[in-house]
């Protein structure tokens, strides 16, 4: 195979994905693509995502037609220079079509584990990632009602540069349901406690929504442990939040109710697939989880408003802070970016709602990497 021929394979977004469908090709065979250009919509059982071209070239073949489900690693298309003869492209298609190659993803070898942190038990997924022994790892902290799978589209991309650790907050995912008073200080102590337990002296903290407030509180309490902060649509920068979302999330017991609620997280409500709804329901049906979530909601979002204001803490931080917000956020208004402390970088993403890491992962990864780079670690 010529070096100018690049196979495009069904990507793996997160560890649980085993197959996916090409929902729609965004480029017609014969068209030229730039590196990073949107190539195809990939539909998983959880959500639909846009896969971008890894290299520049011409999309010579769309091997897998729209609508077909194939295993992760299956050849779905071929990008090559215009000058590569058709016969060579056909040979690549013929030899690679039956081959399922996801070695690139399994190399990283993500590991799920549960770690005791004081009275808590914290579940997490570690992706060893690239870098030397002194590369600062990144710790991903999800939002209210979420779990580590919220990072499925960005985890592997970040691991190309550094180790990635995605945790489940107490009362969420596969972590224990013991959450104490459910305040921000308790949740932040869980994160720093986990870092201590895992012997991580320093990390880039990335937090989404509630997780953003947790990351910020952790940075305020332990500035030496935080190389940089990246906050995606964070809690703590103004009193407004869609309280009916919080209440609806807590109350929803059936698939139908929850689908409507989860749809509000996204600019495109139809992006929510059944598996995502089922996973949230599974979490909510664990003993102790509804009570834990209600405790956190009462502590942080009483009466449908944000009770915690972190703007003063944020202003006194010494580390670089990157803020990312979806312009179509319906949960926490993007207007909260208007009065950020000086020195914060802000990335506003068009066409993304409250979950930019799922709706616009490429842009989010770019913003995160910029943030890490500013810390020089």
């Amino acid at each position, binding site marked *: 195979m010529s070096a100018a021929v690049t196979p495009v394979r069904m990507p793996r977004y997160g560890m649980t994905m085993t197959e996916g469908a090409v929902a729609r090709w965004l480029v017609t065979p014969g068209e030229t693509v730039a590196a990073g250009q949107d190539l195809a919509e990939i539909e998983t059982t959880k959500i639909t995502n846009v896969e971008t071209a890894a290299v520049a070239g011409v999309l010579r073949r769309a091997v897998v037609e729209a609508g077909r489900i194939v295993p992760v690693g299956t050849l779905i298309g071929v990008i090559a220079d215009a000058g590569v003869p058709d016969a060579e492209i056909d040979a690549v298609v013929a030899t690679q079509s039956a081959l399922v190659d996801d070695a690139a993803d399994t190399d990283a070898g993500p590991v799920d584990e549960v770690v005791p942190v004081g009275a808590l038990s914290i579940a997490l997924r570690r992706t060893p990632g690239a870098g030397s022994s002194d590369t600062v790892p990144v710790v991903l902290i999800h939002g209210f009602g979420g779990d580590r799978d919220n990072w499925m589209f960005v985890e592997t991309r970040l691991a190309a540069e550094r180790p990635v650790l995605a945790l489940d907050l107490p009362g969420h995912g596969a972590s224990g349901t013991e959450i104490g008073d459910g305040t921000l200080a308790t949740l932040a102590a869980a994160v720093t406690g986990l870092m201590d337990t895992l012997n991580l002296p320093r990390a880039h903290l990335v937090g989404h929504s509630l997780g953003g407030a947790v990351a910020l509180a952790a940075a305020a309490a332990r500035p030496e442990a935080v190389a940089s902060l990246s906050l995606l649509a964070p809690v703590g920068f103004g009193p407004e939040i869609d309280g009916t979302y919080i209440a609806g999330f807590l109350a929803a017991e059936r698939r139908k109710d929850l689908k409507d609620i989860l749809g509000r997280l996204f600019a495109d409500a139809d992006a929510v*697939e059944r598996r995502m709804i089922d996973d949230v329901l599974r979490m909510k049906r664990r*003993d102790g989880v509804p009570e834990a979530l209600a405790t956190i909601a009462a502590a942080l979002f009483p009466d449908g408003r944000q009770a915690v204001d972190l703007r003063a803490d944020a202003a006194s931080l010494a580390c670089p802070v990157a803020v990312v917000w979806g312009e179509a956020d319906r949960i926490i208004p993007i207007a909260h970016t208007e009065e950020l402390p000086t020195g914060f970088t802000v990335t506003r993403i068009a066409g993304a709602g409250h979950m930019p890491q799922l709706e616009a992962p490429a842009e989010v990864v770019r913003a995160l990497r910029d943030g890490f780079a500013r810390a020089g670690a």
Partner: protein
Amino acid sequence: MPRKSFRQALNEAMRLEMRRDPRVFVMGEDVAGGKGASGEQDAWGGAFGVTKGLLAEFGPERVRDTPITESAFVGAAAGAAMTGLRPVVEIMFVDFMGVCFDQIFNQAAKFRYMFGGKAVTPMVLRATFGAGTRSASQHSQALYPLFTHIPGLKVVVPSSPYDAKGLLIQAIRDDDPVIFLEHKAMYDDMGEVPDGAYVVPFGEAGVLRDGGDVTIVAYGRMVGRAMEAAARLARDGIEATVVDPRTTSPLDIDTIVETLEETGRLVIVDEAYPRCGMASDIAGIVAEEAFGLLKAPIQKVTPPHAPVPYAPELEAAYIPSVEKIEAAVRKAVGWTR
């Protein structure tokens, strides 16, 4: 997430509920003793090893052996439930429930209704069902339709270790009598099961696979076969949605109809006898409520209306196979008016 067997998932469900609620107790044949040796304790954990180890943790007051008299101990359980305990009763084979129909149909199932809601009967009857183990006609039936027929009973047929644990916890916490049926060929099936307690609610179907061409509805051991058929069909571009209603009563007909809005074709796989079985029942309801969605006649994949044979070749031919499911789907998809 830890992987556990179907058997272990059920054992955990009982163990966690017995820890949580002192009113929960287990009784049945050889659930405490066994093997016939005088005084031998916890030899088997019931005929299929599901209650193994409960005696050591909870003692003989809460893990009780019974004589081989189903009518007596099922009646005792109904009475215990009415007076505030929460019995979980093991009956070796669902086929044996025939000797205690009055206790189940006329007593346990009727208490709430006939006492105007003043009495509840939080009783679980666990039993094995199903063919495939050369156990012959009297130990191989899939009798869940019999119990589904009776108002006042809830009927559960799990298809995976995860569901088995969550559904059994739900059954033990439920205030109505629950018939909980475990396929005897599935006890060693492995799957991801969380360590802690969680519930899977009754009357909510699981959707195991999404596809636009056909809906396959299956219960218990047939779910795995439906999934395999769906995987094979996908190679030919036929995409199936696979629905496991998980409980026959209550029945989540809404989810089935919802998938039909996209697929328009329905194949129902049922290990029970074809007459008055779940396949017939679901086909009838769909024909009545969602006829306009159907693009092809409903296909049923069931055994013949005959007792389960003992001869291995005959038994294998009797049980709905992956090939038969595949053929039924192709028939539905290829049907033209």
